[in-house]
């Protein structure tokens, strides 16, 4: 992997021989909270809905007739616009990508607002999404990261077309990078192509400090867990999310939290939550813990889908397993196994050109550095059994937000 900085354009190159498809990802940093929830989502949707010379239909036709996959992903900290194409379609795919990034008209604004509302109502039909959305809404209340689906639904009619148009100028002035993975014989030719045709990707160098504040703990008013109850009387399973704020990827505790999460609930079929709550107690088909790192915060959560009468038992199961981890040292086999599992998964998700270009672009735009993987491996190797226990004690015994969806009768005594 190589970072080339030419004419103020940052280009990451990964040459992968004998691969038929090339991936190009452009990343733009988000450094400002939205005025209204949903602005960045609408912007992302409208990027593929027409340019000065191509209607939305023309764009869809030319992209799909050539088997090109062009997509826009909007996350809390960045917008990624990417394209994946057969090597023979290099010029066309990149001409379209440049057109979208430079010449989008945002003309279908009202229609996309209407569609977005419908899509959110539809997403919220899913009990699991509804419960997780409530968790995000509460744990990040009063913070930009708390712009949940429900909040977006409430805010979206306040958004003006100009708000969306302004996002383009905003992200063009933010930190950005082009990340490429594919089979290219002439590196210089590729670099020259991008410096000429993607000169709008120039970094100004003074993109400034992010206006999004850090959120490093959950401010619980009563210093105890907060429970959100969502009634769905025909639900066959209760959906339970329990969330806590933990250290970010930049913090010293992050590698320790990653290892702890792996042992507790994210290694697959052998995690403690899986073995204890699923295999031994038969409480669930899906039970896990997850870690969602963001630039200014990180969300750790437990999840279980269980028969509604097992809600209390499941919540107790989360506590028992967490306390075990906080109070007793994990074994050497577990510790070393967790480290290998994490690294194996890293390799598993680094196989395709799109995966490679995405990971490198993400590391760069998030400010982690292109040597992040190397540093990450080193930091993981230094995590001790004591670190794992301390991380559980420091972060997972704090007041949490618990979001539970279930039929009303099962929520009464929770």
């Amino acid at each position, binding site marked *: 992997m190589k970072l080339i900085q030419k004419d103020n354009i940052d280009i990451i190159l990964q040459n992968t021989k*004998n691969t*038929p*498809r090339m991936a190009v990802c452009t990343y733009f940093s988000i450094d400002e909270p939205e005025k209204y929830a949903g602005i960045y989502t609408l912007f992302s949707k409208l990027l*593929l809905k027409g340019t000065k010379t191509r209607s*939305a*239909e023309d764009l*869809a036709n030319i*992209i*799909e*007739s050539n*088997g090109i996959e062009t997509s826009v992903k909007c996350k809390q900290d960045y917008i990624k616009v990417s394209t994946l194409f*057969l090597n023979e379609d290099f010029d066309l795919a990149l001409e379209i990508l440049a057109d979208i990034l430079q010449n989008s008209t945002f003309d279908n604004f*009202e*229609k996309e607002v*209407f*569609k977005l509302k*419908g*899509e959110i*109502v*539809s997403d*919220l*039909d*899913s*009990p699991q999404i509804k419960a997780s959305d409530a968790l995000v809404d509460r744990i990040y209340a009063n913070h930009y990261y708390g712009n949940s689906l429900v909040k977006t639904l409430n805010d979206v009619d306040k958004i003006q077309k100009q708000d969306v148009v302004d996002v383009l100028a905003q992200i063009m002035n933010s930190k950005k990078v082009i990340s490429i993975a594919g089979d290219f014989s002439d590196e210089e030719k590729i670099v020259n192509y991008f410096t000429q045709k993607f000169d709008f990707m120039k970094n100004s160098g003074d993109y400034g400090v992010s206006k999004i504040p850090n959120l490093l703990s959950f401010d619980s008013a009563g210093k105890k867990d907060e429970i959100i109850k969502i009634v*769905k*009387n*025909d*639900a*066959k*399973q209760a959906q339970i999310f329990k969330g806590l704020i933990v250290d970010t990827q930049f913090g010293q505790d992050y590698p320790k939290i990653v290892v702890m999460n792996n042992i507790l609930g994210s*290694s*697959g*079929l*052998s995690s403690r939550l899986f*073995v204890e709550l*699923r*295999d*031994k107690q*038969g*409480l*669930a*088909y*899906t039970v896990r813990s997850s870690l969602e790192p963001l630039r200014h915060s990180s969300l750790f959560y437990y999840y279980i*889908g269980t*028969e509604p009468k097992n809600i209390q038992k499941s919540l107790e199961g989360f506590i028992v397993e967490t306390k075990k981890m906080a109070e007793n040292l994990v074994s050497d*086999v*577990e510790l070393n*196994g967790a480290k*290998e*599992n*994490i*690294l*194996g*998964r890293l*390799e*598993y998700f*680094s*196989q*395709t*050109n799109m995966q490679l270009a995405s990971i490198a672009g993400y590391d760069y735009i998030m400010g982690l550095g292109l040597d992040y993987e190397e540093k990450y491996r080193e930091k993981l190797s230094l995590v001790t059994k004591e670190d794992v226990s301390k991380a559980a004690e420091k972060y997972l015994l704090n007041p949490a937000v618990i979001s539970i969806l279930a039929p009303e009768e099962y929520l009464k005594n929770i």
Partner: protein
Amino acid sequence: MTKIIEKKLVEYPYLPEPLRIITFDNGHKLVLAKKESPMVNISTWVKTGSINENEDNNGVSHFLEHLMFKGTHKYKAGEFDCTLERKGGIINAATWKDYTFYYVTIPKKHLELALHMHADMMIDPVLPDYEIGQTFDPNGTIPKDGRERCVVIEEIRMGQDRSWRKVYDKLNDKMYEKHPYKRNVIGTKEIIARISRDDILAYYQNFYSPKNMTTIIAGQFDDEDIINKVIEEFKFQNTIPKKLLEPDERVPETSIKTPVVLTEEAEIQTGYIMFGFLADKAKNLKETISLDLISVIFGEGKSSRLNQKFIETPEKPHFYQIDTCHYQFKDGDNFFIEANFDPTFKDEVISEVKNEVNLLSKISEEELNKAKKRLKVNFAESAETVSEIADTIGHYMTVMEDVALANEYLKALDEIDTNYIENVVKKYLTNDKCSISILMPKKA
């Protein structure tokens, strides 16, 4: 000792070397696929799924899949998962109508260990009573030690809360008269709660025979070493099943005999609808490819007919999502149109989609060319990771019954013209051969 009775090389799209296919004298097949990668995938595909079930044991294929992870004579329950996940492996399994498959994707330095444990799991599962769990009345009190029975029942419950799953299950049941495909792969909680270990073991002994299994290894390795290792590890026991199972009679159904419209209600805000059609066997390659092409033209992607007409063009669309999909099966394919919509427009949604089905009788050259390019790219995509390569080979070996069809697919694709496709539409995709399942919000 197991002997090799056939070795052949088969070209495969987008892979640097042809596949090596080895058939052993016990009927077990091995496919080796070379791919430069830090990972290696080992999968074994068993030619059984709900296709071999009956009214009494529906769900046994899937239940057995769970129980295969519950230990062997060499390794106790959980050891397989722990050992391989702690080496960086991703392990799991899946059951569908025609097949059940088990896989490990792991950093290549652990190939030998993974192959040893994977083979052991496939040939020597103990199926311990304790892990299966006590039988119980699913409508009564669930016992403390319901173990894996409870896990599967939770999986059933999970599906019952998913709108698309509800619509699909209802539709699937009504698309067939008698064929075992009409049953839900996961089974019912009544059967899972009461099926005995003896019945599960009998199912294993009947269908997990070497001739029903194909092992696929994708990644970088030495061919001769790996063949010897497979011979060494896959020492099948010559078990004669204690009880011979008789799956339901399988008369292929390639057209819905009694089309119906089914409507259900749930606590939701939007409407869900699926239109279902039957077609010929997956190994009828030209028709299968035609249905893949029609799916792209009709409902895959923003430029597809249905998306343009109902989502992209209207100022205020009453559809939130509309797609098509083509499922390939050994005894006959399925084609679906699925839409999520504003429930106040239910009647319009039905008539508008039916209208578009009528218009499918004419396909343009431009549409056909677009779809052909998409399908070629799909092949490139499915050769990008060792897992995708193994999955595609497994599908061809099991459902299509011949991996050589993967390469023939691209040749046959070029030969298909608009006339051929239009005839396939007339044969299978008309409104009089379609059943419809709808899920609507519960009325207040």
